């Protein structure tokens, strides 16, 4: 890595008054450094350089500002950098406010940085406080849901940002404030085709919120109605019987024959986990039965090929078709599990996980063999064809 002397030299080139071409080369070089782990760790030891980078995000040269933003994105992606990045909160606050400017060209980059900085609990707590005080999470949700707030930015990364924030109970309280309309605005984005980042962020947010089972009744109520938006990405074009159709929520009735399911398996898994969480209370389970959730899951299970997602689906289906638990055990999230049982269950889970992974490996191997076989025969065919043409 660079010596202290070389680092000091770099720093001198990072002042606003430095010659633009020198500045530009330096920021470009540092961006390159930040592209790998060692470079990041090196920069971690040079807080002055980082401060200089923050300052240069306001440089009149778009190229230089861009390099700085991308460097910061890389740095923020590394957890060990979070402490040093947050040493001077004021710098962060200045950057934050820029997001509110509808003309600002680097809003998306700022959103990525914010999203990275909120991933881990400790920094997340600090970030939430800063966000609430300076910009207000409500404003961020508003910007996230506004179609054309800023022509140059899409704000998709606010999705994972919100998802990260909802690790915190205070963020969840805010999202599910009954006196406001916050979480409801996110629902329609569970099917936002244009961005998997946005979709994933929204579903992650909803999943985190569903850990609070005190809010389940409100979430499942007609006024809020979270259920259809969780089911839609998992529903397909298959026709159901009339009886099953009648129970379905309005949004799931008469789906066109070209209806596609969510294509990202991780998001599918999160949706299933969210649904499973909502079955914790008896009231929730009753609503699931009334709204024909099982038939949708049944068809989904037939369609799904990923082993992990299938496992999540099966867990949900077990609850949907299983008998009601005995009195006293109705809220599955509150049941006291005796220690030995808990141990056994954890071991069983670990074993299941192992088996799933083995199965996945096996499937992958089979696929590769198939591919190899096919390419062999294709190769042979191509040779034949080529022979013919000649």
């Amino acid at each position, binding site marked *: 890595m660079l010596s202290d002397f070389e680092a000091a030299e770099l720093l001198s080139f990072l002042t606003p008054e430095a010659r633009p071409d020198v500045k530009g080369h330096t920021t470009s070089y540092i961006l390159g450094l930040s592209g790998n782990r060692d470079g990041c760790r090196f920069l971690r030891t040079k807080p002055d350089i980082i401060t200089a980078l923050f300052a240069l995000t306001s440089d009149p040269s778009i190229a230089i500002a861009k390099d700085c933003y991308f460097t910061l994105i890389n740095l923020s992606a590394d957890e060990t950098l979070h402490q040093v990045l947050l040493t001077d909160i004021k710098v962060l606050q200045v950057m934050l406010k820029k997001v509110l400017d509808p003309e600002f060209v680097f809003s998306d980059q700022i959103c990525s940085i914010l999203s990275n900085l909120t991933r881990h609990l400790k920094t997340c707590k600090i970030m939430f406080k800063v966000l609430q005080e300076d910009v207000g999470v409500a404003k961020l949700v508003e910007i996230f849901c506004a179609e054309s707030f800023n022509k140059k930015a899409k704000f998709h990364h606010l999705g994972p940002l919100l998802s990260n924030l909802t690790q915190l109970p205070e963020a969840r309280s805010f999202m599910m404030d009954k*006196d*406001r*309309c916050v979480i*409801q605005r996110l629902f329609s984005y569970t099917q936002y085709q244009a961005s998997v980042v946005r979709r994933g962020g929204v579903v992650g947010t909803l999943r985190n919120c569903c850990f609070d089972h005190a809010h389940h009744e409100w979430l499942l109520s007609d*006024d*809020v*109605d979270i259920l259809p938006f969780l089911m839609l990405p998992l529903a397909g074009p298959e026709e159901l019987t009339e009886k099953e159709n009648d129970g379905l929520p*309005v949004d799931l009735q*008469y789906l*066109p024959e070209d209806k596609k399911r969510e294509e990202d398996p991780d998001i599918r898994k999160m949706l299933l986990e969210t649904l499973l969480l909502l079955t914790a209370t008896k009231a929730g389970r009753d609503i699931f039965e009334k709204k024909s959730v099982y038939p949708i899951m049944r068809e989904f299970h037939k369609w799904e090929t990923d082993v992990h997602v299938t496992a999540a689906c099966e867990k949900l289906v077990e609850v949907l078709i299983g008998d009601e638990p005995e009195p006293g055990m109705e809220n599955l999230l509150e049941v006291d599990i005796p220690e030995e049982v808990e141990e056994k269950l954890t071991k069983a889970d670990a074993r299941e996980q192992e088996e799933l992974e083995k199965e996945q490996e096996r499937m992958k191997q089979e696929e590769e063999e198939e591919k190899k076989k096919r390419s062999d025969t294709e190769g042979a065919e191509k040779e034949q064809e080529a022979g013919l043409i000649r």
Partner: protein
Amino acid sequence: MAAPQDDSDDGMDEFMEKFKTTTYKNAFSKDNWEEEFDKIPMFMKKAPEEIDSQSYPELACLQAMIHDEDAPPEEQAANLKDEGNEFFKEKNYKKAILSYTAGLNKKCGDQNINTVLLTNRAAAHFHLGNMRSALNDAAAAKKIKPDHLKALIRGAQSCIELRSFAEGVQWCDEGLKIHPTDKKLQELRATADKHKRAAERDSRKAKIKEKKLHGEKEALLAAITDRGIKLFQTSKPRHRESDGEEESSSAALSQLSLDCLSSQEATGARVFLDEQHILHWPVLFLYPEHQQTDFISAFCENDCFVNHLALMFGEELPPWDTDRKYHPQNLQLYFEDEVKDTLYQVKPETLLLKVLQHKRFFVKAGSPSFIVVVKGSPFWEQFSTGKKIRGL
């Protein structure tokens, strides 16, 4: 009047006596005192329709004060606003609108008054069912004062009544930005959203139904053409302007063919394809001798004529058969090729499908028709003169 200047009381007593016997001039009478009261502005319970200065001079005077052209415009506008509000309270929305409009026309510089005038006029329109006007007024109010809660609520409500649900949600969202905890706005948003989703479901349902119907039509036409059955083109192709390029040719063609399938029979019976993919045709039997017809609503293509004839003529002969000669065994069946002026004889044992597939058979108006005559009858001799007779 008695002279009141003496000190004696005698005149007084006399004076007082008079009150007991004579009424004073211009007294209210027992019968009309309520009517009279209603004419006095102070005692009016509601404003009269037209303030006629002859019958209500006092009210006309008051009104002149309200409409005092010399007062500053803000004052006039405020007075008109109050007047409008009074009419509104009486549910006289038309009059209220007039007052508010007059107030707005003062073009006074006070934006608060103007906002209220617009919002109140929006409310009056709303109660009259003029949703479009209500929405326009609410929008105008919102333009002047974007945070005016009543305008925001009224705008959202109007959108919902106009079934413009997505717009309604937008109004609510705009309002909730400024008044995030307002219950009414939240409630309206939930309502608008719900209706929007129901409307989307209805449109999906309609699309699927249309597609199904279209599919059934196509299947029917395909079944007919696959069998080599020809439909007689009676009408000119209808020009469809709304169709897109690709759709128009096949859709127009199928529409045209379906038009040809429409039976002119009042029963509205039509050829259909059953679940086993068998066609059933509405068939006409013509009895030119007696100018009679029989209509079979669903003649299965795999059925033969014998069965139907037996059904119709087997047990009882029809009343129009005055000669009592239309026994099944005496009957002959033909179909006519009008173009070539030929009659083709159909043996009763033949299946309907076979006949329909004949190269000179054209289904007219969706109903295959057959001529039924009695073998060797005088009518037949006459009828068949000049026509060519052929077998199938």
